[in-house]
């Protein structure tokens, strides 16, 4: 792997999200608060979300971690805002497939997320990318069950 391959990992879009994270912070009255960390490396995230009428009306994240984990969290919140809970959960599945290097359905608009595809080539970094998604999945599936 050369520095050129690194460019597959550290795409411009990812670096942009890392430097200028979207939806950083916490919702004051977050109905859902999920704390998650990656015990092997110390990355941690707090995700707060509001769900109204079956839709994710607001999502913010706070935390500490590497470029990949923070950029992925930023992209994730961007992608799920305004989406139906089921769509958000479906996105999460798509994202898992992407990380495994598998094919995934093309009918969803992934936007910036597609830039994270390169992570699948770096096994040690997949956990960084999936942290925020796991938090979202946990929060929304628990919310769904309680309804």
């Amino acid at each position, binding site marked *: 792997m050369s*520095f050129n391959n690194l460019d597959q990992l550290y795409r411009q879009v990812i670096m942009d999200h890392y430097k200028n994270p979207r939806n950083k912070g916490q919702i004051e009255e977050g109905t859902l608060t999920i704390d998650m960390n990656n015990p092997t*490396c*110390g990355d941690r995230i707090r995700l707060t979300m509001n769900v109204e009428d079956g839709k994710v009306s607001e999502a913010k994240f706070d935390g500490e*971690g*590497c*470029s990949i*984990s923070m950029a992925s969290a930023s992209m994730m919140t961007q992608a799920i805002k305004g989406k139906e809970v089921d769509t958000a959960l479906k996105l999460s599945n798509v994202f898992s497939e992407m990380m495994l290097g598998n094919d995934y359905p093309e009918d969803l608009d992934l936007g910036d997320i597609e830039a994270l595809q390169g992570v699948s080539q770096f096994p040690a970094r997949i956990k960084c990318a999936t942290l925020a998604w796991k938090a979202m999945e946990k929060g929304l599936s628990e919310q769904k069950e309680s309804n």
Partner: protein
Amino acid sequence: MNAKEIKQYFPILDQEVNGHPLVYLDNAATSQKPVQVIEALDKYYREYNSNVHRGVHTLGNRATDAYEGARDKVRKFINARAREEIVFTRGTTTSINTIAQSYGRANIEEGDEIVITYMEHHSNIIPWQQLAKEKGAVLKYLPLQDNGSVLLEDAREMITEKTKIVSIMMVSNVLGTINPIKDITKIAHENGAVMIVDGAQTAPHMKIDVQDLDCDFLAFSGHKMCAPTGIGVMYGKKELLENMEPVEFGGEMIDFVGLHESTWKELPWKFEGGTPIIAGAIGLGAAIDFLEEIGLDEIEEHEHRLAGYAMEQMSTIEGISIYGPLAGEKRAGLVTFNLSDVHPHDVATVLDAEGIAIRAGHHCAQPLMKRLNCSSTARASFYLYNTEEDVDKLVQALVKTKEYFSDVF
């Protein structure tokens, strides 16, 4: 000592990673293995693999001799008084847990105190947390100075007659600090406490003399000192071990088994329940031979010099912070650092693309990370086969990393 020549004994180091010659700087996590150790394992499995202490047959005797011979080598290696004081375990973690579950449970009562430090590895924190919770005892942390040291005056203050156990690492896997174990042991003993030493980062890199330290227990792992994974040592003073109950029961450790009562074998076997780690112990014996042939003093000196050189070179990189004792101060052969604006994971990924293996993360020392005010750091750790050339490559790659990330920003 000639590190370049020594490197040739380690076949794994002769390879390319991501198109670059491998530079292995993650030795504090685990060391590589020389042909001498690989061949000892190969010979055991090809020629005399057998269970020990049981058979009447020839292979069984050979295996038993080799297994018990390894114990004698360990005894000499740490200058223990007697071979009965050497118990083979799975590693440092198992050794400390065994001490906590056996000695700890029998001797700790409500209100007793256990003293450790902020720099401990999780394996020397959690067994004591669990014991303290179970018994209603108090776990105390010796304060950490900004240069990564603990002060003897703090130890004198915190270790009192309430203290029953003091358990401290001799060398820090993050800071490189070398703790004044001999002095702390004295303080522990003056207050009637036992002294346990985590020697995981010590045994591979410098001479240990348990009689000189006068510690009551010592734990270390084979895999960090050229031996295979799955083998380690629990040293304990005979008079303590004799009064301790085993924590694992089964074959190999019994003397007589009745329907409702059993008795244990004598030391050290009463702590080695089940078929022992025969190949691992033989590998550890071979690793000790290898290290002693080179000389532990020479290895320590070489690593100290290398770490000094690395600190000197690395400190020229703008925006780098290096943790632990300053260059020139007494310190072990590793450098833990952070590059400003680049997360340690990203540093490690870029270095890996250059064939350089380092560690990034919390190094199993979350309380220490909290005390240092960071969630994660990068660490380059050296061993006897590392050279100044390796350090130069590391420094060049770190400079590149900074440039790479300042470009994308």
